[in-house]
Each structure stands twice: as C-alpha cells, then as structure tokens.
C-alpha cells in the first residue's frame, strides 16, 4: 500500500496555555470591571482557532488573544456583559488584518492599531472597525509595501 506523506505545516495550538493566560488577565482586567469565566476563556480560545483555520493561517507561536485583550481592557466602549463576545469578534478582525496585510505587521502593531481605531474612529463598533477602518488600513499597507504595482 503506497502512503503518500506530504509535509505541510499544521497549526501548533496550545489551547490550555491560551486559556491560562486569558484567565490570568482577570487580575488586571477586573480593575476595569471586566473578567472572564473559564467557559468564556475556552470560547475565546476556540474562536481564535476557528478564525485562524477559516482563513487558512498556520499558528506556530503564542496566541494573539491575551495580547488583544490586554489592549482592549482599557476601552471605554466595552462592558462586562459584552467582554467575551467582543473579544471573539476582535480576534476575527485580527486574523483578517494579519491576512490582508500580508503578514507585514506584527501582532503587537495590529493590536495597537486596532485599539486606536476602535477607540477614536470606530467609536466602539467592531463592525465599522472590521469592514471599514481595517480594510482601508490593509489596502494602505499593501500599497506601501508593493509600491506603484498596487495590490498583489
């Protein structure tokens, strides 16, 4: 029987570590009235996996969820009852930006930019953040990176 082995990279996920890091953030986020239950942390970790898989991104390093939440816990637009749900939406947007900016921006850069737009331009709307602001940003990044050839 001939078995065809193809060596394609597969996502290296460490969900238990991601969940631990998210729960550890409660120490800081509670100062802002925000916290996650274990179930919510698991939901967010799963949402990140789903977002990565649906965009065919390969994870090899740390989860982006703790990074994003650490930025967005400072937001004036997020309350306790929408914290987990917003986190999941932000992860979707994060993965879109990673993909549409052709991996030209680091995780921290994207988290900072997303937070800045969320607070000052999208006024707390993840829909505007994802569909308008980040799309314009990614187009600008691609244009800048690829010069007069425009978008790849």
């Amino acid at each position: 029987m001939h078995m065809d082995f193809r060596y394609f990279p597969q996502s290296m996920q460490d969900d238990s570590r991601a969940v631990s890091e998210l729960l550890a953030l409660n120490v800081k986020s509670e100062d802002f009235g925000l916290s996650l239950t274990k179930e919510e942390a698991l939901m967010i970790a799963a949402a990140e996996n789903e977002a990565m898989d649906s965009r065919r991104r390969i994870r090899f390093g740390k989860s982006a969820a703790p990074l994003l939440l650490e930025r967005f816990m400072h937001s004036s637009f997020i309350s306790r009852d929408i914290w987990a749900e917003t986190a999941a939406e932000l992860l979707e947007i994060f993965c879109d930006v990673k993909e549409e900016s052709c991996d030209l921006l680091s995780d921290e850069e994207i988290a900072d930019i997303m937070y800045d737009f969320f607070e000052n331009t999208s006024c707390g709307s993840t829909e505007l953040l994802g569909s308008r602001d980040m799309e314009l940003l990614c187009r600008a990044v691609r244009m800048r990176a690829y010069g007069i050839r425009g978008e790849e």
Partner: protein
Amino acid sequence: MMTQALSLPFSEEEIDVTAYTASLISLCVSHGILTAQRLDALKRTFDAQFREAAEQLTRRASGSLSLEHAEKLYSSVLYRSDAYLLSLKSAQSAADALRTVPPAEILARGAAVITRRFAQARLLAQRVESTALHIGFPEYLHAAHEAFDEFSRGYSARFAAQDICTSIDYPLLCSPAYALKSSGVLFICEYLSALALENEFCRLFPEKEVLGLLNSYGRLYGCPYHRLLFNVCAVVLRNALAAVMLGKEPLTLRLTKAEVRRLKPLSRAEITSALEKLTPKPSLRRYLGAYIPEFAAELERAADNGAACFPVCDSIVKKQ
C-alpha cells in the same frame, strides 16, 4: 553496532526529485523501511525547525503565518534535507541516512551542503563569465553575466532555500532552463556547470567562425540570430560533428551546401566516435554525448526530406 544497509525494494526513478525527502520517506514507509516511530521523530524535528524559522522570519513578533508563507517556509526546511540526501548520490544511501542519522543532524548537514553549493555556484559563475562568448545574444549574455548576481541578491537559504530567484531564458544543450528538476542553489549550480562546459566547448573554435556560423544560422530562419532563442553550443556541435563525419579537419565549423547534401544518417556509435575526435576531455564528452540522439534524429530528417539544420558557412564573417 553498525546498522546493516538494506537493499531498496523500489527504484531511484520512483523518487520525485522535486520533493526528494517527502517522496523518499513516503516510499520507505510504504515498504516498511522506516518505522512509525522514526517517521514521528523526523516529523517532530521538521516541525520544530519550521517553528524556529517562522519565529525568525517574523522577528518573534507574530504567532501565525498565512498558509502560503507557511508552506514556503516548510519547503525551505525540507530543502535542507533534500540537499543532504541528494548529496549522498544514491537512494540507498539516502534511505539509510533517513533511518539512522539523527533528524536534526540531517538538516544541519543539509545546511552545510547548501553553503558549499553556494560557494561552488559563485566559482562557476566566475568561470562562465570569464569564458563567455562575445556574441550579441541577450538571453545568453544575461545567463552568462547577470543570472548569478540576480540569484545571489534574492536568495534566502534560511527562509526560501528552494527559490530560484533569477529568470533564465537561455536554454541549455538538451534542456530549457525551466525543465531542470533541481531548485534553489542546486539549480543554479546545475545550470552554471552545464553552461561552463558549453562555453568550454565553443571556445575550442575561433570566435570569428562561431559568429559566422550563428549569422548563417539566423539566415536559415530569415532573421538575425539574436532574435531567435536557441542553444549556441547545439549549433556549434551540430556543424562540428557534421564536419568530422564528412572527413574534414576536426574543429572546423564551415560546411558548404554540397557537403551538407552529402550527410547521411549514422549510428549512435559512429556519432560518438566523431564526438571523441572533437575533445579528449571525459566531462565534456559526457555532457555533449547527451545531444547524440538529437543529432542522429537531425541526420534522419535531413536524409528523409532534405530539410537540414546545418548552417552553410563558407566565408569568414565580417565583425559586427
């Protein structure tokens, strides 16, 4: 305790040279030569090296990559293994290495092979450039004078070891550049080695005669030769072999129309004998010998329908 070498139950031809490691592993596992445990060890090492390469590529500032980037990076890791296993020159030795050499060592040795090949390619490029013919043929001039520089400027042995990073249009004696199965630094080595041999052969003849021949060749097709895309060595070799077969002095390129009409099909052994009169050098004979089937076919065509690809060159050409 020395591990006994196994005799392989499959042929070298079954291995895909464009994905040597993956293909060989696949065959070895299918035939029970590699255990599941060994396969797992190999995969874990490849994955770990991929992860490290991804961290380096993203300057440790990202946790993910697009699938496209990730596949390219993983291929670069596997290329190191390919380079090492191919350097062992036989599938038997490669399979033994897969079975017995620590996986991380396979990749480390492969990285060393790539470094050596790059240095070799640089020397070959210098040799090609110093022996390049002075002809106004853009694709040839690019291959001889610019291709390696273009390659070395863009090549990343760490993140894209399989990339070719240069566009070469000039075909080799028996193959266009794009048909070579090697990739990355192995490709540029293979290509430049071949081009160096072709230059060496063409330099056996006075350059004025070569230029005259090329101009005549262009006239066969009704345009300046530099507007055609062909292999110069093939044109030179064809006329040189024909001249030997017609009993002319070796290392003559000039043929008259009457002489071309006298050409008859010959056996491959007879053509090989003619080739031996052109050069005593084994490496050159070996390389040029690959053209013999094509030459034999050309003689058959000339005999069958009178069409011949032997430029008539019966006067010294004026320098352009």
